[in-house]
């Protein structure tokens, strides 16, 4: 198949072929079952760990294989997502949980918590959202009060991906209510810490293989050494994490949309009506053409954003938001169109596209709704043009 030249490194190409084969042979045969039963892909992630695929974003000195190129990890997410984003989110959410440690953690924290994530022995999770604090972090109610050499956590986190399955949690809590966003701190909390428990597993529309649970903290004492950075820096870690993780959501979207396009074109070539394959109808082939163009444009934007981040750019929030919002809107459109191309079959669970359409919706919601992404882009434009006018 003809491909655009994205100048992929040898490692990125190797990862792409490994993950493509892995997704086809290990994930595709079980994805419908994992979706139907809402079953966590424990075995799949364990095998990925053995294949050194869980540490693509973790630097070599902490047991991973990252040496400055973020594309191998992004492409791993994309290829896994092409087959199932319920599985890929479980993979990517570990990276999300690890990011605050990578960005703001000290060497001891990195040495202790990153190697078992790189080997796949443990998973991580990122706990920011609360019932009253979604897009607006100022509604955060979870508190952390310093007591001796511990912090006592109280409160509830909601809709936490990998909740219950992960061993290492990055938890955001208010240490100084008077200071608003500057009063939020980030902590590393290990599963099994007394006072830390889980609520029920959520029953979701899509990404059903992934585990989404409530985290409950009741006088949970966390060692003070597990504070990431200083008190009051939590919000910075949260936002910096999103700046690097949003291209990962874009990669999920690109992979998912590519998977839906694959299904739609394959079907349109074999489905015959009125004596010819339906792809021979212009109305349908133009639809496929638009889908393919959107997928490639989303991929190009996403890769370009990641290259910009890797190049050491200082301010890239706008671009991270752009690739997230664009690719996830494309994924929603392309998966919906794929169901349309397959018609009645597309609506049935015997075919994979209905799942893809259900799965796509979350991409427009999590890691900042697409409305929030547009806010970020709009704010950046306002600021940049004001600066230019001066």
């Amino acid at each position, binding site marked *: 198949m003809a491909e655009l030249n994205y100048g992929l490194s040898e490692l990125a190409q*190797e*990862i792409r072929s*490994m993950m493509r*084969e*892995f997704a086809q*042979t290990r994930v595709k045969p079980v994805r419908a079952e994992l979706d139907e039963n809402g079953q966590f892909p424990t075995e799949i992630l364990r*095998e990925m760990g*053995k*294949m*050194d*695929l869980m540490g693509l974003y973790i630097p070599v000195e902490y047991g991973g*294989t990252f040496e400055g190129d973020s594309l191998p990890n992004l492409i791993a997410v994309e290829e896994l997502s092409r087959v199932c984003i319920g599985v890929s989110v479980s993979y990517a959410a570990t990276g999300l949980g690890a990011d605050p440690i990578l960005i703001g953690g000290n060497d001891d924290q990195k040495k202790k918590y990153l190697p078992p994530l790189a080997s796949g022995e443990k998973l991580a999770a990122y706990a920011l959202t609360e019932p009253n604090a979604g897009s607006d972090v100022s509604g955060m109610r979870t508190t952390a009060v310093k007591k001796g050499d511990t912090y006592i956590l109280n409160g509830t986190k909601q809709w936490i991906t990998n909740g219950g399955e992960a061993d290492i949690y990055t938890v955001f809590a208010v240490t100084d209510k008077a200071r608003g966003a500057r009063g939020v701190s980030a902590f590393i909390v290990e599963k099994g810490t007394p006072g830390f428990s889980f609520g029920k597993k959520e029953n979701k529309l899509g990404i059903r293989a992934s585990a989404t649970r409530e985290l409950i903290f009741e006088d949970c004492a966390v060692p003070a050494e597990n504070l990431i950075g200083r008190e009051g820096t939590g919000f910075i870690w949260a936002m910096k994490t999103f700046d690097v993780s949003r291209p990962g959501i874009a990669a999920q979207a690109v992979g998912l949309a590519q998977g839906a396009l694959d299904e739609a074109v394959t079907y349109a070539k074999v489905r015959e009506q009125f004596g010819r394959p339906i792809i021979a109808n212009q109305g349908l082939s133009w639809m496929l053409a638009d889908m393919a163009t959107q997928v490639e444009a989303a991929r190009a934007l996403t890769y370009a954003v990641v290259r910009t981040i890797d190049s050491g750019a200082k301010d890239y929030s706008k671009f991270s938001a752009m690739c997230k919002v664009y690719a996830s809107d494309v994924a929603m459109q392309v998966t919906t169109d794929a169901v349309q191309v397959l018609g009645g079959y597309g609506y049935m669970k015997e075919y994979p596209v209905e799942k893809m359409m259900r799965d796509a919706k979350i991409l427009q919601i999590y890691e900042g709704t697409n409305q929030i992404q547009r806010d970020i882009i709009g704010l950046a434009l306002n600021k940049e043009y004001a600066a230019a006018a001066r």
Partner: protein
Amino acid sequence: MHIVVCVKQVPNTTQVRIDPETHTLVRDGVESVMNPFDENALEMALQLKEKHPGTQVTALTMGPPQAEAVLKEAVGRGADQVMLLCDQAFAGSDTWATSYALSRAISQMAPPPDLVLFGKQAIDGDTAQVGPGVADWLNLPCITYAYGIEIDGGMATVQRSFEDGYETLEVALPCALTVVKEANVPRMASLRGKMAARKLTIEPTTAAAIGADPDKIGLAASPTRVMKIFSPPPKTGGVMWQGEEPAAMARKLVEALRERQLI
């Protein structure tokens, strides 16, 4: 423990086509892979290595220079050493001569292996002779069609699988096993393994280096003579019913079977 796994490079197809003129395998345009049953044998070795720390796994193959690809694949999955028997003198060896050559190579290895594993057969030739052949040359007990193994204190407990049942045997090490597909799901190569394999230079081992008797290797020493190889004619005929109600088609099928007095 030292485990030797014999692997073979084969064309990647379960439907090997044969040139109707020359009666040889059509290899053009067909990708080469590790024989699928050998993948199960290698996986068995790697699982034993995980269970018994300190175990060394050696992958051994005989073939043309490009056969080193299967050895690199084995290293990618976790094999510790490899040996490529590659010499013009081996060319055209049948199963008897191949078994001899492999047995010579294995008998030169240090430390001597505790276990020699093979796939139950190769998907190109389908003879299933080389495993037992090597075992015979090395004078090792051989258990064919193995799907499970436990090792404890110099003894192995091996499960065998047949079409009509299972058998559990106990055998003293060293021994040889041929492994069936049901044994396991072969792992895929790891990223670090692939990187290590890419850097690896595999020096071919010659017939002289393993002290092989020139009268026992190659085409001239091979007692097998292929009289004829052919693709069976494709099945023709048959009756197809489609598009009707399933019940109506089922009735037709029953009638047809009754007519032929098959039911």
